């Protein structure tokens, strides 16, 4: 009887795990089924077209996402590596404790709140929506993860190396540049890519900052389209044509995000 209960319980947990996998398989299958048909050359080389022309693509959104995300990543990496270094160099000081708390507070901040704050700060003062404002909003979302993760990465530097460097008479700055940063090069790259995967799918911070655009826009000072934003706009539209494009965009986005985060699965837990 006891063994039977155990077996039943095992079967129950397995069924639950399996059913979640089946739901995931469902999502992926339907994404591929509905998305693959619309992924062709036009999807990548054409910008949005009015309904009825039965063509059009995601070019402006792909380019916009690339620009917005790379500016955001530049901001995130430069600030977070310095922040992580501060946490590593001055551990257990009051400032670093406060910094850690404020990062976890920022991590918990709803992304849409980041969006409306950047709207007030940047969009209001510039007078119009811009891709640059979108980058800042995304940076606000990405910074806390990257700061906490990079601190954990710096912690992995073997203390033997650091002590050897100090014993050679190197200054703190040089130890940081020659030992700690050099040692952390690849893990830092990995968590940067993970942060990129995390912010690439964020839509809410872009709603009132980058705003979206139907035309190709290369100037980050102007309103810009972005992949998740374009998917959202097309998904809530009433036209079948746009729905197809939304599926195709979602497929491309998810391939990018999921592949990145599965490849780098080893580093995934850092910074959470």
């Amino acid at each position, binding site marked *: 009887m006891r063994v039977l209960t155990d077996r039943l319980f095992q079967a129950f947990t397995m069924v*639950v795990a399996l059913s*979640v996998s089946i739901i995931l398989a469902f999502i992926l299958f339907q994404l591929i089924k509905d998305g693959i048909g619309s992924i062709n050359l036009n999807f990548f080389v054409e910008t949005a077209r009015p309904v009825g022309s039965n063509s059009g693509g995601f070019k402006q959104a792909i380019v916009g996402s690339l620009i917005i995300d790379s500016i955001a990543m530049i901001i995130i990496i430069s600030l977070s590596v310095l922040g992580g270094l501060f946490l590593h160099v001055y551990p257990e000081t009051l400032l670093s404790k406060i*910094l850690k708390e404020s990062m976890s507070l920022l991590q918990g901040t709803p992304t849409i709140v980041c969006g409306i704050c950047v709207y*007030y700060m940047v969009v209001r003062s510039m007078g119009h929506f811009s891709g640059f404002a979108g980058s800042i909003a995304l940076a606000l979302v990405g910074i806390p993860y990257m700061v906490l993760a990079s601190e954990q990465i710096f912690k992995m530097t073997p203390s033997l190396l650091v002590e050897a460097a100090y014993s050679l008479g190197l200054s*703190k700055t040089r130890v940081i540049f020659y030992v700690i940063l050099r040692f952390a090069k690849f893990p830092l790259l990995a968590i940067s890519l993970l942060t990129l995967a995390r912010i690439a799918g964020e839509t809410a911070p872009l709603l009132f900052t980058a705003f979206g655009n139907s035309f190709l826009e290369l100037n980050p000072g102007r309103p810009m389209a972005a992949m998740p934003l374009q998917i959202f706009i097309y998904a809530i539209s009433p036209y079948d044509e746009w729905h197809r494009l939304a599926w195709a965009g979602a497929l491309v986005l998810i391939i990018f*995000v*999921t592949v990145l985060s599965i490849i780098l699965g080893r580093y995934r837990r850092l910074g959470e």
Partner: protein
Amino acid sequence: MFKKAQNILSFRSIDLANFSLFDLLLKVVAVFLILLPVLIFIILFINSLPAISKLGFSVFTTNNWDPVSDKFGVIAPLFVTIIVGVVSTVLGLMISTPIALFLSFYSRGKISSFFSTVIDALASIPSVVLGLWAIFYVAPHIGAIETVIKALFGFIPFLNGNPSPFGLLTTILILTLMLVPIQTVLIKELITLVPRNLLEAGFSLGTTKYEIVTNLILPFIGQGIVAVVFLSLARGMEETMATAMLIGNRPLFPDSIFSPTATLTSIIANEFSEAFSKTYLSVLFELGLILFALVFVTNVCAKLILRMLYRRFR
């Protein structure tokens, strides 16, 4: 010799200057990063001042969302936000606890890593994509499910209403799916906190895994699960895109669990760019402030509990 000494000196001074400069940079960045959440709070507060001074506490007492005549009642969206968070958290726990147990006790090797990958993949799906999927593949079938629920449990007041494709239930189901991976990972983490020797002592008594789970693991991680509840509550309440796409955006009190309504996030997402008056915009910032405070409180609760746990067991 003099030259050499000078060389060393100058080199030192450069080095010193360099060092302090970099040090200064680190400190400036640290202070800047610390100020970010403070800045967010200040911006939200400044912008919601007009609404607070004009409407005062009436936003918490009126139950009416009518921007044209400057009537804004936040009880309904606030209530719905909390309901959506709570229900999807509870449903999520029912799914994620068995999965976490399965991953840590009933599977190993390739099977375990396969299901871990599944959980990771589910966690990495952007919410806008999940929303898109739900619009086309969940919402059309929700009506049928709701009719069944209504027929079976219609005597319970909140379960008796007109089925509609977009509404509370759809949102809750999708949010559950989003919370499952987060909760699974956290619960798995909690299970590793259970002392190894306790487990081994249990197994050496000849108990089955089921008995270990019910008598040892679950009581042991009970407090931790409360923290998980708070954490995923925060995640559920702040979720924007899927909610905005699925909840129907009708800022009224829901008649039943099927009816379209609105949360704090969905109102901000849907109405922010259409706010026509100063008070309207300011009220939306106030919603942001309320949301910020709500998520802050739940996150702090979770942090406190987790910290207590770690202090006890580590």
